[in-house]
């Protein structure tokens, strides 16, 4: 074993340098600076993950308020509470906020916080890129919501179909705001995806081979690769739209040799994978929760990993099922029907495996597992109505009706938000050092579960009964009033139950029972460190020998990382053999400055194309400063065995 001082004169952790002195030294090296400046300069994945999570939950609340307003307006026929102009902004904002500012970022948030802990490392691979990503996301969200408050909120739907969203039918800045918000969030999502992919592939603890990686980490790896392949499509789409709107190109103008369907292809080539980008992390949550609360390894590890990968691949072959009513060739549709049906196979496999785990395990029915049970009961309905929608003739009837609204809320709330709430309950002690209230959690769960179905189940019938989506009012006597009223009442209770969850979080944050390191007796490495984790995550890097390191009596660790500089271990991609020790960046404000410069460029480019030229100068300056060669204390070095 290594002595406290290496021959090269740097201090390293080791069996003789451990405990409190090591803690003090590592904390000094890895912690964020003090005060506001420290806060904005932070590159710690936990700080960034936390602020990402809080921001995403704020957007969830805002999106929820919009949903409540819509349910108020639709609670009866011919209501005149909200006019068409505001209503169209509201449903556009609801969809845009939930998809771009809540669902994807909240999964990013969980991944940023958890992945380094779950794979046993000290930070993400590109900590500054992570920080940059958060600032871009925040700027995009603020842009959208400030515009909405100023009555410049987008009003052409979260999908912004052209030509409605084009320069002729949507003059003014509303659609530009939407398109630039997309640019912001795409940059943010791509930055996180790149950072997480590199982290997962290169920063795993010694011995954590790909085949031993926690299932949540697998899901994030698949999702990050999906983001890298799908997001450029929507960034292209929104870029072309801005260019049509701002400088008079005609990409989407059918009468000038453009094509309005081009938008739909580009948008849904991103838009469909997006659904799985939201669902797969949730599937990862479920795998982790099931494993922890049944006390056995999730059955069918390999099958689940293959299912995640299969979903990730198939997700790119389905987008045309959003376009069945556009009159594309029938033979082509048949392919997309088959592909859309096929994607339910890997999802079915995962559900089979989770239930088999519960069957053969020893489940403890605590709140996170309840959310999983609620997830299965709800999500499967959404999956099966999805099978119906894959069928072209059926889709032609129910496409763009409330049947579809019901379907995707079953899939997105049942399939992603329920597991997310379970996951927040599950990892809350790790995030905060305190347990969430079990009793309040159960009340919240049952109320959410029941009111969710009361809100969204009637929408299936509304759709079959002919109620289209995106209408701000409907005439009396269509047979829709009772169903809408039930749905609106359900929504009131549902909003309350989400409120209970939030109250539970806030109360527990202040008064919750203190959490030990591993309160659930779970198996993953994130439970090997204290709750909440210290800034450096692990005093000594854990060595992994199987899938469930925390269930072994023996927990070996590796020594030899520097303690006075930020240093991380790089391991090989497949076998996670220690390879190189690499310096990790210190806190810096440059990501924030670069994000601010990019914000100026993006926002100004809604008004003049010259902003792209002139605005590029400060962005370039910020990036040069960001990447300016540091006075490196050291280069990457091979591992000393």
């Amino acid at each position, binding site marked *: 074993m290594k002595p406290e001082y290496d021959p090269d004169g740097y201090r390293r952790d080791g069996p003789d340098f451990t405990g409190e002195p090591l803690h003090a030294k590592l904390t000094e090296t890895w912690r964020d600076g003090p005060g506001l400046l420290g806060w904005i300069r932070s590159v710690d994945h936990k700080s960034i993950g936390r602020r990402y999570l809080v921001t995403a939950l704020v957007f969830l609340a805002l999106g929820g308020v919009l949903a409540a307003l819509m349910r108020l307006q639709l609670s009866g026929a011919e209501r005149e509470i909200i006019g*068409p*102009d505001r209503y169209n902004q509201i449903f556009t904002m609801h969809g845009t906020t939930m998809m771009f500012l809540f669902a994807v970022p909240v999964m990013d948030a969980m991944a940023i916080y958890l992945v380094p802990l779950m794979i046993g490392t000290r930070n993400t691979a590109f900590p500054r890129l992570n920080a940059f990503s958060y600032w871009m996301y925040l700027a995009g969200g603020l842009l959208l919501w400030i515009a909405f408050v100023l009555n410049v909120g987008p009003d*052409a*739907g979260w999908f912004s*179909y052209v030509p409605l969203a084009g320069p002729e*039918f949507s003059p003014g800045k509303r659609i530009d705001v939407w398109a630039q918000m997309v640019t912001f969030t795409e940059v943010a999502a791509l930055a996180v995806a790149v950072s997480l992919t590199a982290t997962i592939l290169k920063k795993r603890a010694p011995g954590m081979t790909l085949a031993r990686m926690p299932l949540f980490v697998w899901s994030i790896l698949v999702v990050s690769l999906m983001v890298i392949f799908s997001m450029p499509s929507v960034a292209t789409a929104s870029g072309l739209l801005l260019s049509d709107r701002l400088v008079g190109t005609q990409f989407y103008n*059918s*009468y000038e040799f453009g094509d*309005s*369907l081009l938008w739909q292809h580009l948008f849904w080539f991103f838009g469909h994978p997006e659904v799985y980008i939201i669902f797969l992390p949730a599937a990862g949550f479920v795998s982790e929760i099931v494993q922890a609360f049944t*006390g*056995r*390894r999730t059955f069918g590890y390999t*099958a689940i990993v293959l299912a995640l990968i299969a979903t990730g691949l198939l997700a790119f072959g389905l987008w045309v099922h959003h376009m069945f*009513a*556009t*009159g594309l060739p029938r033979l082509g549709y*048949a392919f997309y*029907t088959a592909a859309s*049906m*096929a994607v339910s196979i890997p999802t*079915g*496999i995962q*559900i*089979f495996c989770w*239930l*088999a785990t*519960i*069957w*053969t395990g*020893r*489940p403890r029915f605590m709140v996170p597992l309840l959310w999983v*049970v609620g997830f*299965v*009961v709800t999500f*499967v309905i959404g999956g*099966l109505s999805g*099978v*119906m929608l894959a*069928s*072209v003739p*059926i889709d*032609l*009837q129910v*496409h*763009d*009706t409330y049947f579809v609204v019901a379907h995707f809320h079953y899939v997105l709330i049942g399939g992603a938000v329920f597991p997310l709430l379970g996951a927040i309950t599950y990892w809350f002690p790790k995030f905060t050092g305190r347990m969430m209230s079990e009793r309040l959690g159960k009340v919240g769960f049952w109320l959410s579960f029941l009111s969710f179905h009361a809100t969204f*189940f009637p929408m299936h*019938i509304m759709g*079959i*009964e*002919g109620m*289209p989506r*995106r209408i*701000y009012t409907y005439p009396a006597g*269509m*047979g829709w009033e009772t169903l809408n009223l039930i749905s609106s009442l359900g929504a009131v209770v549902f909003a309350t139950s989400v409120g209970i969850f939030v109250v539970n979080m806030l109360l527990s944050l202040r008064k919750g029972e203190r959490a030990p390191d591993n309160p659930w*007796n779970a*198996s993953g490495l994130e439970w090997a460190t204290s709750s909440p984790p210290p800034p450096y995550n692990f005093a000594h890097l854990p060595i992994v020998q199987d899938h*469930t390191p925390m269930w072994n009596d023996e927990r070996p660790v590796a020594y030899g990382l520097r303690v006075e500089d930020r240093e991380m271990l790089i391991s090989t991609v497949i076998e996670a053999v220690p390879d190189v020790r690499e310096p990790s960046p210190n806190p810096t404000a440059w990501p924030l400055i670069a994000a601010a410069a990019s914000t100026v460029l993006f926002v100004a480019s809604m008004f003049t194309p010259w902003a792209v030229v002139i605005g590029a100068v400060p962005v370039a300056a910020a990036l040069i400063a960001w990447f300016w060669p540091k006075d490196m204390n050291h280069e990457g070095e091979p591992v000393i065995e």
Partner: protein
Amino acid sequence: MKRAFAISAVFALGGCGGIQSAAGRDGMEGSLIGGLFEVFLWTTAAVYLFVLAYLAIALVRGRRHRREAAGLQGQPPPDADRKWRTGLIVFTGATALILAGLTIATWLTDRALAKAEQDSPVEIEVIGHQWWWEVRYDDPIPSRMVRTANELHLPVGRNARITLKSNDVIHSLWVPNLAGKQDLIPGRIADLVLHPERTGVFRAQCAEFCGLQHAKMALDVTVESEADFGRWKAAQLRPPPVPTGGGALAGYSLFQSRQCSSCHAIAGTPASGMVAPDLSHVASRRTIAAGTLPTTHANLAAWIDDPQAVKPGNNMPEVPLTEAELGAVTAYLETLK
């Protein structure tokens, strides 16, 4: 599974589903799709029941294991997992088979829908506008072409081929009682074949978000006997009589001399604007403003008086008229049967 029964009940009650309902099945396409929907509904309901049963047993079994075992972790015996692996393979195979069956059922239905497009259909052109429907009945003899708005008359038992175009943004024509929807996309031409099997009055509505008044863009659909259809068409071909006196004559003059005639056309009069609905027989239509209001004296007057109050944001400007002028124009429009 009470829910599945509930939807099925809605669906099976064919014809009782209301005037704008996919459960209506008043046309051949609608019936074929309804039949396919039932196949899907019962299959998915069975799958859902299976999952629920599996979940329930898993919870009960799991709970029993929990009571039996004191320890926390540990793996079940390896051969138990082998049994489950076989189960997983069987489950996956069964899922694939069911999905293959549903895919084939889809293709068969789609083929049946694609085939039913022959034999001397009624040729209709529907053009989407923000936010109303222009409807033209084509005829080889130009003088026998009919131009109307926001209403569709179809003879029962005969195919109607509808050519779909859009004048501005994407709309979608959906007569749920008769068939699935089809988008109207600017720069493209699509068609939709309807084969109504029952007479009746139905409602269609735009199904693709098309802007501010997407919610108030509906269309009345009347399916009638071949004879009634012939009578309706003949009536549409007759220019309305020019009023000879009274308020209606004053209304006629106002219509021609004020802004009205620059957008609206009335057959047999100088009014020939093409950007707004043809009003030649507006009083014979059931509703005005694209299905927004029933055609009554009061509604017509309210609409002409302040169209922005009825349907905010629509393209009809408010034409300043005195009380008397308003009454006259309304009286004139009411003669346009």
